[in-house]
């Protein structure tokens, strides 16, 4: 029983950064932007969160700083893809490289190369009073960091915004047919730019959750593919917030399974459990890609004559 609890609790925890980032990407994807650069944004968020928390001594202020810095970083992506109309994939790749170089450079400049990690304020486990005492259910669902609850609470909100509000309609339309949006007076570029910034906000939060919730320090290259997994979660989740939640949980569970297998089957070469999440991603993409909500204008810059 304990193992079941631990497995599901781990699943939720591991799903959270994916879910947070994916809830941002789902909007930018719907607006027609393929954000390969999420990995880099999360890395920037992870470092700036730690710096912010270190400077202010408060994890929330740190997260706020992470959001601001990541949004600025996302603005570079937005500038190149929306304003300059460059190829989104290539710019995204460049952003990832930029983030990896910049975070190393900045981290060293601020904290030095070989010292102990700075002591920072970090997210603590916040059991929900009462609910966390329920056997089995409590420890699985109600004994987490606040950001875990927030991530899952954000799902219905994101769903509502995407399908019930004016902004959501604009975002969905801009990805489907930017020219039509232009003719009804919607500023296509601005909508896309803002959705990129929004995905930056969430990537920043996701990054700071990795560096200040799951851990309490920054290490070089610490996102280790999490941004790409989030991107895959959006495609697998068929571009809806609910689907994204489902796919994040699948990825979280596959990671939890991987760690479990690693711990149990110590004579299986560790490389094979490590491949599980990637294999699951590929297989799941093959299953869902045929019936996709992928926006028609996805990945293509809107060029007004």
């Amino acid at each position, binding site marked *: 029983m304990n193992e079941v609890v631990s497995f599901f609790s781990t699943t939720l925890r591991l799903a959270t950064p994916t879910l947070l980032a994916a809830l941002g990407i789902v909007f930018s994807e719907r607006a027609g932007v393929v954000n390969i650069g999420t990995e880099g944004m999360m890395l920037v968020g992870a470092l700036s969160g730690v710096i912010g928390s270190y400077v202010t001594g408060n994890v929330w202020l740190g997260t706020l700083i992470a959001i601001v810095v990541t949004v600025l970083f996302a603005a570079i992506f937005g500038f190149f893809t929306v304003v300059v109309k460059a190829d989104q994939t290539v710019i995204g790749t460049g952003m990832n490289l930029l983030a990896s170089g910049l975070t190393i450079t900045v981290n060293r400049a601020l904290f030095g190369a070989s010292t102990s990690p700075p002591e920072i304020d970090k997210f603590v486990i916040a059991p929900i009073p009462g609910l966390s005492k329920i056997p089995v259910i409590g420890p699985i669902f109600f004994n987490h960091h606040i950001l875990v609850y927030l991530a899952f609470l954000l799902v219905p909100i994101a769903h509502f915004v995407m399908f019930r509000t004016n902004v959501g309609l604009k975002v969905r339309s801009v990805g489907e047919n930017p020219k*039509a949006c232009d003719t009804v007076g*919607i500023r296509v570029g601005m909508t896309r730019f803002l959705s990129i910034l929004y995905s930056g906000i969430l990537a920043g939060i996701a990054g700071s959750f990795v560096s200040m919730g799951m851990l309490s320090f920054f290490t070089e290259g610490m996102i280790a593919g999490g941004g790409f997994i989030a991107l895959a979660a959006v495609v697998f989740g068929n571009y809806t917030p609910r689907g994204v939640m489902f796919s994040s949980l699948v990825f979280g569970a596959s990671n939890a399974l991987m760690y479990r297998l690693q711990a149990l089957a110590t004579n299986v070469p560790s490389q094979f459990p490590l491949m599980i999440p990637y294999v699951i991603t590929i297989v799941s993409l093959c299953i869902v890609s045929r019936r996709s909500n992928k926006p028609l204008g996805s990945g293509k810059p809107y060029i007004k004559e």
Partner: protein
Amino acid sequence: MTTILEMRNITKRFGPVVANDDVSFSVKKGEVHALLGENGAGKSTLMNILFGLYEQTSGEILYKGKTVNIRSPRDAIHLGIGMVHQHFMLIPAHSAIENVVLGYEGNSAVLDLKSAAKRFTEMAERYHMNIDPWELVGNLSVGQQQRLEILKALYRDVETLILDEPTAVLTPQEVDGLFEVIRQLVAEGKTVVFISHKLPEIRAICDRCTILRRGKVAAAGLPISDIKDLNELARLMVGREVELVTEKTPSEPGEVVLNVENLNYTNDKGIHVLKDVNFDVRAGEIVGICGVDGNGQSELIKCLTGLLHATSGKIELMGNDITACTPKQVLKQGIGHIPEDRHAMGMVGQMNLRENISMVDSRDEPYSSHGFMHWRWIDDHSRNLIDKFSVKTPSIMEKAINLSGGNQQKLVVGRELSRKANLLIAVHPSRGLDIGATKYIQSQIVEARDRGVAVLMVSTELDEILEIPDRVLVIYSGRILACLDQCDCTRSGLGLLMAGIEDGEEDRPA
């Protein structure tokens, strides 16, 4: 009547191309003003400037007497200008009402689609247009989509409505319905700018007309009532006397080249698009398929050319069953195919002319052998071809995208006609071309027929259908409703058939 809109000395350049050259245009409140001109005359450019999609290189716009700076459609909508574009600006994945409220400034942050739908339905009923607000736009017919576009503009309380070639995709009966709506709008005091190159329609609905020719104003604000002869308008539009009829001798049909039997096609959404289609095409005759866009023509042609595979039925070319053939195999059998959209299918804009010319036969001699391209031969061949079909280009190394629309189509037609084809399939061969290019391409098709090629032509243009084919098939909702000899065709008869009314044959003259 006061002048509501004035465009003064508008010039618009696209690089070296001058699309509008010192154009002035003025519209009075409450009139239907036709903007007339050939394709490429600059009508749409001018209206796109008015609607804020383009920015003029120079010139000014006055609306209700005030100079206005229209930099985006948003500004135009604020002023009360609405536009229904030739290519609908709708999002198929969204419902009708979502399309209507999209970008509407009166939207609250949380959408209240229910009351929007109520307002929409009331408005639709007022203009006798019935559209289910909750239906996905992808499921609406073309006519419904256009009505939705008009309602979308009206929903924004426009005072001036620009209709860009609104009748291109409608049946004559739908056109009549559209004219009813326009009359009602004018009666309510709204102003309509009506872009077209179809002279009878202009006479039927418009009060005045402005004619553009090659980017310049050929006639401004001409009252329609003053015009006695349509040829006069045509002359103003084209700049010379137009031979409105393509010379053609009666056909001498030979053996059956293409035979289609009980063809059925159901698409992946489960919609039965083609229903028991039967017809044949003989050597030396032109068979025209006439119908409103979206009634199965595209699918039929795709089945014939192997791009789609029929669900059941049989297609025979020169006695060979090609039903299950791939496009490559079909092409080998000797089919020339002028596709429906040259940009999307017929050519590769980023490639040069010689590459576009070798595109279809690249795998065959003499274009290539043993997997290697024979560029030297292709160069000679390309030069001959652009000479023969008078494609205007600086060189065969020019990218196709840099050619004008007419020259692009000549290139595609030339390529397909120069292939050794038994069957030529020509889909909308003159769509988007000016009269000169249209006539040239039509005459080339007739010439091919005279050489003994079997021709299957798809068109939505009644003028073309009435003129070119020897036999006409009318397609409606995936069914061939009628097969008529050309001499049995009348405009109204075809119109009714195109609208799916089979009794239309009764109208034909004895």
